[in-house]
């Protein structure tokens, strides 16, 4: 059944069968340069299971029309699917209400929405935004806008040398001028998972709301926004085994009610006159224009697909791959792992002495091994660790120890060619 994997590891939970899951992803059976594809770049974008692609095509072929503004049969059917997808996201994040879920084109737009619609109107010169040095640019640049345009001050919280977050340092950074804490749930470079519940509790104790960038975190562990009591949580579909072009923002109802509109256009209004305008309630207020309807159906299918697994078992599987890879790379005294925080997620970033990440990635690529090389949209973090770039292998539910073995063999080969 799942013998090949179990024989090698002896540890994988019987309730998750990675070999079987692999079969759901057609692309994983292709070759590149005549070698089997070893896809270790899911942190950038995950592959899509057959059910997601089928659901999108089936919907487009049988129920597709524009949403919300038609009285005809198909428009009603499409609207039902669109709103059902919202409830799927609500359930996935355990939000209290479906109207706390705003569809966006991805995590980036979700965070920009909070920056523009929630925070910008509140910022006075000198007000502070607390963020960590391990944020992705999508959780940095929207706040830089407020620094440039409105005089906000960005207060950076460092990470420890092992990549873990110093919660006391974060707490100390929150003061009477702080208007928001914006923090990743899981670093896309270090794999560090942040203690969101503790962060929220400490920020709320000082009356400060918290936004989490959940683009990586939501993939690797279940999220309960009510238990976290978090104010904003951003996700993106394409890292969750769903399509590109769709993501979502969870925001507490009270915040959404106070937020000014973002994009203007169809769907987001109540009444438009020559000299006055009123807006629809959230979430429609923040969903101007025709949304990515087919992608929304794909996202809901992807979330259902993921939720059908025992997610603890999936996380254990991914952690096993990380631990195995971590152990294997110890044989390379020329390789430095960046990010070793306790309980981190399944991302392995490293620097190789005498080998630039791009040269390494080119050689691995010819072995069929897809890794990411560069600054990973985290230049502040690169600076923190004194590197220009790193190589990164990121593990998903469909990876196996055989993928790690291919990575290790590729690293040995690259060493031989480049040094």
């Amino acid at each position: 059944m799942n013998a090949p994997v179990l024989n090698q590891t002896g540890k994988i939970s019987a309730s998750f069968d990675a070999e079987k899951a692999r079969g759901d992803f057609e692309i994983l059976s292709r070759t590149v340069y005549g070698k089997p594809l070893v896809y270790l770049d899911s942190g950038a974008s995950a592959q899509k299971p057959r059910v997601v692609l089928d659901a999108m095509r089936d919907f487009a072929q049988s129920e597709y029309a524009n949403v919300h503004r038609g009285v005809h049969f198909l428009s009603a059917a499409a609207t039902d699917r669109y709103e059902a997808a919202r409830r799927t996201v609500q359930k996935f994040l355990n939000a209290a209400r479906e109207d706390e879920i705003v569809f966006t084109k991805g995590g980036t737009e979700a965070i920009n929405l909070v920056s523009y619609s929630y925070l910008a109107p509140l910022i006075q010169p000198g007000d502070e935004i607390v963020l960590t040095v391990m944020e992705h640019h999508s959780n940095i640049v929207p706040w830089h806008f407020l620094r440039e345009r409105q005089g906000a001050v960005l207060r950076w919280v460092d990470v420890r040398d092992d990549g873990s977050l110093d919660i006391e340092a974060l707490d100390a950074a929150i003061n009477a001028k702080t208007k928001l804490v914006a923090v990743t749930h899981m670093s896309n470079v270090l794999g560090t998972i942040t203690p969101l519940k503790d962060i929220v509790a400490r920020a709320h104790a000082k009356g400060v709301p918290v936004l989490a960038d959940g683009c990586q975190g939501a993939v690797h562990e279940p999220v309960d926004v009510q238990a976290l009591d978090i104010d904003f949580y951003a996700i993106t579909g394409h890292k969750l085994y769903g399509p590109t072009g769709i993501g979502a923002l969870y925001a507490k109802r009270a915040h959404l009610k106070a937020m000014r509109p973002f994009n203007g256009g169809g769907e987001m209004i109540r009444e438009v006159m020559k000299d006055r305008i009123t807006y629809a309630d959230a979430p429609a207020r923040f969903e101007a224009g025709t949304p990515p309807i087919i992608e929304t159906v794909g996202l809901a299918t992807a979330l259902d697909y993921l939720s059908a697994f025992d997610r603890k078992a999936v996380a254990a599987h991914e952690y096993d791959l990380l631990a195995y890879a971590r152990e294997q790379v110890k044989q390379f005294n020329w390789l430095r792992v960046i990010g070793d925080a306790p309980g981190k997620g399944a991302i392995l970033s490293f620097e190789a002495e005498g080998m630039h990440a791009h040269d390494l990635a080119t050689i691995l690529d010819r072995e069929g091994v897809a890794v990411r090389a560069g600054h990973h949209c985290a230049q502040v973090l690169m600076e923190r660790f004194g590197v220009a770039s790193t190589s990164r292998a990121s593990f998903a539910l469909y990876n196996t120890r055989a993928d790690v073995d291919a990575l290790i063999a590729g690293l040995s080969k690259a060493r031989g060619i480049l040094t």
Partner: protein
Amino acid sequence: MTDNALRELYQEVILDHSRHPRHYGALEGASHKAEGYNPLCGDRVTVYLKLGEDNRVADIKFEGKGCAISQASASMMTDMLKGRTAAEAERLMQGFLHLVKGEDASDLPEDDRERLEVMGGISEFPMRVKCATLAWHTYRNAVEEGAT
């Protein structure tokens, strides 16, 4: 086949240039200077020039950090540009750009082509062509806009 392409790309001449770059460092009294940066890879190259009559490259040096391809290309470029006029350098650059894109580079003088051919392997790696051309574009920026 695959391995041949890799060996071709990372041949000894290129690795040697990347490990022991020629004309490396800042150039005292440079008349022109430009910085090149590839945000995708983080490759950085600064080209320093002393230009004489006809924008002849009287002296050239570079500094930089990045992948083996970008640094080797910069090193080889400094070797080849020294002593050339701007017109000669431009012709060399065009020939080089053709070469790394796998296009016809037969308009290059034969001895130039022979020297540059070690970079020809990059044409098999379209994602890396920008690494190879960074130094050359930076040289051109220095000539055109980099008067100090």
